């Protein structure tokens, strides 16, 4: 559902603000860390710090308060040699969470298209792409 015209509230407010994003990010990491293909990327990492960064990032995408001041996404992921398939799998977990939480319409599209747009910066591993 699109935001009502004349309503100044942001997509961030429309999905339930900080609390909703924290729930979404928690669920997302449950899925990702439970996926044997993806879990190794997080070995030895401070997952709660990563989650905080992600909440801030999603907040920014949805027009919420504050600004993402973490590292550049490309730089942050460069050492991980993330393959295209693993990236896509991760996107899959995220969109599954959005559906489970009933995120719809503009907020859904804003989040998924922002995430898709990071592919080029994040995928650096081999075994990717057909051309």
């Amino acid at each position, binding site marked *: 559902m699109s935001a009502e015209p004349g309503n100044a509230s942001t997509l961030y407010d429309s999905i339930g603000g900080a609390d909703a994003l924290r729930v979404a990010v928690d669920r997302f990491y449950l899925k990702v860390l439970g996926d044997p293909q993806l879990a190794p990327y997080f070995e030895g990492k401070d997952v709660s710090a990563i989650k905080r960064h992600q909440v801030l990032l999603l907040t920014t995408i949805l027009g919420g308060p504050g600004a993402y001041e973490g590292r550049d996404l490309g730089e942050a992921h460069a050492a991980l040699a993330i393959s295209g398939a693993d990236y*896509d799998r991760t*996107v*899959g977990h995220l*969109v599954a969470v959005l*559906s*489970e939480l009933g995120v719809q319409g503009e907020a*859904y599209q804003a989040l998924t*298209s922002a995430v898709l747009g990071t592919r080029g910066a994040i995928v650096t591993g081999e075994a990717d792409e*057909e*051309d």
Partner: protein
Amino acid sequence: MPVVDAHRLQRSFSTVAAFGDEFPLFFYSHLFLSHPEARAMFPAAMSAQRDRLVGALLEVVGNVHQLEAVVPMLQQLGRDHRKYGVTPDHYPMVGASLLAALEHFLADEWTDELAVDWSAAFGIVADVMVRAAEDAGRVSPPWYDAEIVDHEVRAPGVAVFTVAPDRPVDVRPGESVSLQSPQVPRVWRYYSPANAPRADGTLEFHVRAVDGGWLSPALVYGTGKGDVVRIGAPVGGGLTLDPTSGRDLLLIAGGTGLAPLRALVEQLGQVHHQRVAYLFVGARRAAELYDLAALERLREQHRWLSVVPVVGRGPGPGPGPGDVAEVAVAHRDWTDHEIYVCGNDDMVARSLTALGTVGIDPATVRVETYTYAGPRAGRAPAEPGTSDPARAAEGSEAHA
């Protein structure tokens, strides 16, 4: 053209159709007993073939009062049958076995009048098919040999591969072609190329290995770079774009049903237009969004394109959370959009239901029309759960 009593013919066919699989079984047995040499033209396993025969007959008989409606389908069928090595001489054998099967199952109800009706109807069908095959024979081969130049298992059970045909295949975006692998002789299944025509003539296919399927597991796991597959004549007009339309587009894909819809997006990318397109890409599991790289490239190139990935699937046969069409209908108002849906039969059925809940007439939604492929027949898919899964797996390995 002989006058056929449409009502009489349809009534007799419904009697025969009630025998289910027995009817095509008798037909093929009769054909192979009377013409053993014909057996070599058919695959080892015949059940998918039996569905095709019944599907095609249903389509013809249902339209016998307006045969012009099925002429395009019959023409495609005739062109496509060249790949089996079918010649005009084969049609009378088929006609004789068809009449023998009808006579057998109609028993006391079989009359001279019915024999005339059925001969006339079959004569028309054969005539259309033979002529289409002859016309096509002047411009294109019965099949194309195509070398696999790239093959990748992208997600569990899903392969994306590119082939280079030995000569240009004139397939329009949204159409399908049948494929055959050297490992599985005489078994052909329909798949849609995922690309608009390219300068180098290559075609990209997306194939999911269907559990219990004949060809798809071979294409996913048993075929690789350097292998040569065969490609039949293009078929199917259900998903092609109307070039004169300026309406915005809603494209809803489930699994490898993405392929023809991506081809439509690529086609739009090659022309000047004012249309806006939304592509909803559904996958059952996170690991099955197999083509995001290509979709992201298209989205970067085309401002008019939105790509929305969706993962999940509601429990039970009806639409539920995470169902791709369910997410799409919640997205915005799609009135006045041209809507295309492609996926497996259940996905298409669920999508039409979801679209129906927001007032979209399912008859206006563009879906694949392999009208002669049995389980996929027509615009009104069977209710989920009513079809025999083993049959469905064999008959429609595409777009699972």
